[in-house]
């Protein structure tokens, strides 16, 4: 019996640490694949070079970095206000039955495969943008719109939890001073939930940067730095997904190095989200 207990404990420990070791292995694998080319080309040249033609020896990923920033920024600008409105409505205004209707709908939204979003963007959004606003339709705007919908559930649910965690005594205190419901939300509930909401936005940002399939389908994927929301764009993730299938040698290494950059960005974002949420809790 004692041997059995020991065994179970060992197995649980190994399984518990497997996620950590997986992370370490992935990091190791990506870094090992990408570091040689970074050393050869130079980090600065790689990050700030504007020309991506890996078969001809040009390894600048600035267009893709700019692309990821554009698309993510656009997704936040379009998505965060809607998500916040939704979270505030659910937490502060909606009655029980309405909340019971909207929340599962949001969870369903989160469960739809990204290729479906991409498909809808491709057949509806892209032609719409082409006809209404001009340009090729495959664009920053199309990708941002699709991503805005995709980050909606994340940002909404994290913000909702942050709002629910605000003690009722703050609301009472504010209302008892003669504040209206909206004044109470704006002046006492939102400030109290600020760090949680910020963490939600950062998590949504991470999702937007990491999303690949839906973006490939609607973004146009040209390796140019976009100057208008109607320009086609290629993101870091798209770059890897589009080319890894046929890349070899240094080209392949350059894609791994793209992965390194992406990995660092997302790790950084998660750390910031943790720190921001932690600061809110400790207060």
């Amino acid at each position: 019996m004692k041997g059995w207990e020991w065994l179970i404990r060992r197995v649980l420990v190994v399984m518990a640490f497997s996620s950590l070791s997986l992370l370490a292995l992935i990091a190791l694998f990506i870094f090992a694949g990408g570091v040689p080319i970074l050393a050869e080309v130079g980090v600065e040249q790689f990050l700030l070079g504007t020309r991506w033609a890996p078969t001809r020896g040009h390894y600048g990923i600035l267009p893709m970095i700019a692309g990821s920033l554009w698309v993510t920024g656009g997704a936040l600008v379009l998505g965060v206000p809607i998500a916040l409105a939704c979270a505030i409505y659910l937490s502060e205004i909606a009655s029980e039955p309405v909340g019971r209707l909207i929340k599962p709908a949001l969870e369903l939204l989160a469960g739809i495969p990204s290729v479906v979003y991409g498909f809808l963007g491709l057949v509806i959004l892209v032609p719409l943008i082409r006809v209404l606003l001009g340009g090729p339709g495959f664009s920053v705007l199309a990708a941002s719109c699709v991503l805005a919908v995709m980050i909606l559930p994340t940002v909404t649910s994290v913000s909702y939890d942050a709002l629910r965690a605000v003690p009722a005594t703050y609301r009472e205190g504010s209302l008892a001073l003669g504040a209206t419901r909206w004044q109470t939300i704006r002046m006492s509930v939102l400030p109290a939930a600020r760090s949680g909401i910020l963490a939600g936005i950062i998590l949504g940002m991470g999702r937007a940067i990491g999303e690949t399939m839906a973006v490939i389908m609607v973004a146009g994927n040209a390796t140019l730095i976009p100057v208008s929301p109607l320009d086609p764009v290629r993101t870091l993730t798209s770059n890897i997904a589009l080319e890894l299938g046929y890349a070899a040698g240094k080209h392949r290494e350059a894609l791994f190095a793209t992965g390194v950059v992406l990995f660092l960005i997302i790790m950084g974002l998660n750390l910031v989200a943790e720190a921001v949420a932690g600061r809110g809790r400790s207060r």
Partner: protein
Amino acid sequence: MVNGKVVVSQLNLAYRGRPALRDITLVFPEKAITAIIGPSGCGKSTLLRTINRMNDLIPGVEIRGQVLLDGEDVYGGTILLEELRRRVGMVFQRPNPFPLSVFDNVAYGPRVHGIRDRTLLADIVERCLRAVGLWDNLRDRLRRPALELPLGQQQQLCLARVLAVEPEVILLDEPCSALDPISTLRIEQLMQELKERYTIIIVTHNMQQAARASDLTAFILDGELVEWAPTEILFTSPRDPRTEAYITGRRLPVPH
């Protein structure tokens, strides 16, 4: 019976059909301190919260009867809810300053009611912090988070926050139950100073507090007003045996 700052008249209140207050008629005279005492769950906080309509927030509340503020029914639809709550301020059982700075806590109410001018706000903050005796202590720490203050000072700050909207009536809902004896005494002193200008109604389960600090006392039991009299009289020669049992700490006679 109709003169008095706040007059409660034949008030009945029920939560989802269960009566919590029965036929209460009570006058709160101006510039005096009235204490409402009674055992836990007797409805004294509920009564207090009908005066500034905080019970409206709870779903399933039904109210019949009248609550008059200067002769005007607060449930009559002529007094704007926000204006009512400005005129009738409230301090809660647990100190509940906002997670903002000391300054912003006191300025919260005036800002809500449209005051934007910085020097005016600063004047109000100073005046109110002086009134509750916090100014000398906090004048250099106005930008510090209010939640860093000790509980007693937090409660004084909550009182200052109420004063800042220039109320006429101040409701205190067991304001000292989370405080130590010294902070409690401080709040009681403040009440004495404030009754020069305000009508004060305090709910307390601490009978010594009621006896020390109030001019009039109302005793409530099971949602009914048992007795209402000047504090001295109620505590020395209560008319109702239930009052006597309660204030002397004897077991209450079993109802019916």
